[in-house]
């Protein structure tokens, strides 16, 4: 699947986009996998209350299923307007 990062999440991980094949079935499972990859991922995903997730461009939750999902995006709370 495609994983996208925005704002400080992008800066902390060091890239805006990557392809990642996961065995996880939920967003939190995916986050657990990413955390174990490298320190920069562990740092970015240290505090989930500071993060939001979108699945296929729709806001979602950390316990949501990844079945059929093609694009996951992680970012901080939005600051539009």
């Amino acid at each position, binding site marked *: 699947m495609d994983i*996208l990062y*925005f*704002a*400080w999440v992008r800066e902390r991980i060091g890239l805006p986009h990557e392809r990642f094949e996961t065995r996880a079935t939920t967003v939190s499972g995916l986050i657990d996998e990413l955390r174990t990859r490298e320190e920069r991922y562990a740092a970015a995903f240290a505090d989930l209350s500071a993060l939001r997730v*979108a699945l296929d*461009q*729709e*806001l979602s939750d950390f316990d949501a299923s990844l079945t059929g999902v093609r*694009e996951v*995006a992680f*970012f*901080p*709370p*939005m*600051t*539009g*307007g």
Partner: protein
Amino acid sequence: MRVSVQDEVFDFGKEAEAFTQGNKNMGAIVTFTGVVRDADQGGLVAMEIEHYPGMTHKALSEIAQTAVDRWSLGDALVIHRYGRLVPGEQIMMVATAARHRMQAFEAAEFLMDYLKSRAPFWKKEVLEDGSADWVAARDEDENALTRW
């Protein structure tokens, strides 16, 4: 209803005039525009606005459509910029057209509240000393959604 996500400058006056002319059967037009202000202590050089291209237009359209349906608007307009903006530049505008002013005002406030917390934009402030910080979301912006 029109939603535009763009890096170009927009002309607030022309947009407001065109919107008004396009809604002559509506008695109330409300417009709001957000401007990059200098930081409280001064020293803001630029505001860099990042967005999620695949999601932004869709999210804004859903928010605008909700406003149109809920307040029976004749029309709604949302323009939101991204990229590097300097103090004094307009970031975004909304316009609502309704039969009466209460609907137009409320719908515009609803649009603004949802744009702040549910549209995928992130702002970074670049200061004179070269430092740059992401603007943190404020609890009161999130709490503002509960009134709707």
